[in-house]
């Protein structure tokens, strides 16, 4: 069985680099993009979506990403 995670996508045109998405993120240190937003190229297995909710301009979306079996169990 494959576990589900999400990969976030940022609409850079609307992003105002406010940092709220990083501030609310419960992930471990370093889950940050090169533009000081939430990481965009790394699967997020928490998937609380708080970053999407807190974004003042709603420019964060996600796609569901299937992790290979055992990935989440090992964390």
């Amino acid at each position: 069985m494959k576990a589900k995670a999400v990969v976030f996508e940022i609409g850079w045109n609307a992003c105002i680099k406010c940092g709220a998405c990083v501030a609310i993120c419960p992930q471990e240190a370093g889950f940050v993009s090169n533009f000081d937003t939430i990481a965009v190229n790394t699967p997020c297995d928490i998937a609380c979506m708080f970053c999407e909710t807190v974004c003042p301009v709603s420019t964060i979306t996600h796609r569901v990403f299937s992790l290979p079996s055992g990935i989440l169990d090992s964390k």
Partner: protein
Amino acid sequence: MPNNPDTEFLQEYDIVVIGSGPAGTTAAIFAAKNGLKVLMVDKKQELGAPIQCSGAVSHNALEQAGVFPSLEFILEAIYGFAIYNAKGERKIVDYRTIKPEEYGTQQGCKPLGYVVDRRRFDRYLATQAEREGATIWLKTEAINYRNDEDGHCTVELKKFNETIRVKTKVVVGCDGVQSQVGKWAGIKTHIKLSELASCLQFVVDGVETEGLLEIITGHQWAPGGYAWVFPKGHGYAEIGLGITRTMCTENAQTYLDHFIKNSFFKERFKNCRIIEIQGGGVPLAAPLKIQYANNLILVGDAARHVNAITGGGIHTALSSGKIAGEFLASLIKSGKPANENNLKGYQDEWLKAMGNNMWKLYRVKRKIFETADITQRDEQLFETMSNYFSPTSEYKKI
């Protein structure tokens, strides 16, 4: 971080300050002034940018931190407050009329506070730190830290693509509400969605102001927060708001648009032209219960040193930075190890100076926003804000 005994350390400092906002620069200033060898790093190329703050700070806050109110960073002097309820009825707290002998534009009087340009303010403070002897590295990202067996620690930095390891006694995490430094040390920094205000503001032309910070309460305009209109100097103003996303279904942008187009200020705003867009996450939360670890402390927004009623963080950052800088100078010069037992002293001093009052403010804020009835909640927030800014407020020092 790899533990390589062959690593050659390029530099050794008493403290490494990570982040050069008001908390970091003030900590660096007071640590350097008291004889420590200080390195302050920031991953940005331009301090204070992007602006994530409204820029309001009291004269008292600057004075306490030894910061001269320079025209280099002041956009406009302020003299009081106008607090509005949801219907637009307002209470004025203008110190030009309450204490005319102390506040005003006449000779011998001073402003109550200022709206500052954060880019220039942060740069000004960094300059003061450098003049006190601190070393500043820009475009330098802090990657990680490791406690060493000798009681010191090693910080891994990336400066213009070069990896540098620096040996130090204490890492001072001043990297803001998005702090990664606290996470390195396993400090519980997580903030609840119900306690992080989602903020958006426009700097605009074409809106008159009167030397007051205007605060607009009411669930319909800013659920779980408030809206504001601040003077911004040279005829500009700042219109913004912060909302709590667990108390509404729309984002801050929608609420700000609604406030500008439909509030009792719609006539006032109808010709405004947006010249800057800024935003931020503001923790309307309790300060962190633990703000230290072995070889590490957190200061400012990183430790949730934010006024939970107003969302203001500059005053608390300056005060906390001063406490941290002076405490670390005293500790390190004493020769005692910078372990968590000794660094707890920083938090104790901070609690005594301001932290206990900040906890009180947090409890007041929580009680207001836990009130289920929206009308009652609006009334409580309006009353609390009105009282907070009065000359008799018990909290005026924070």
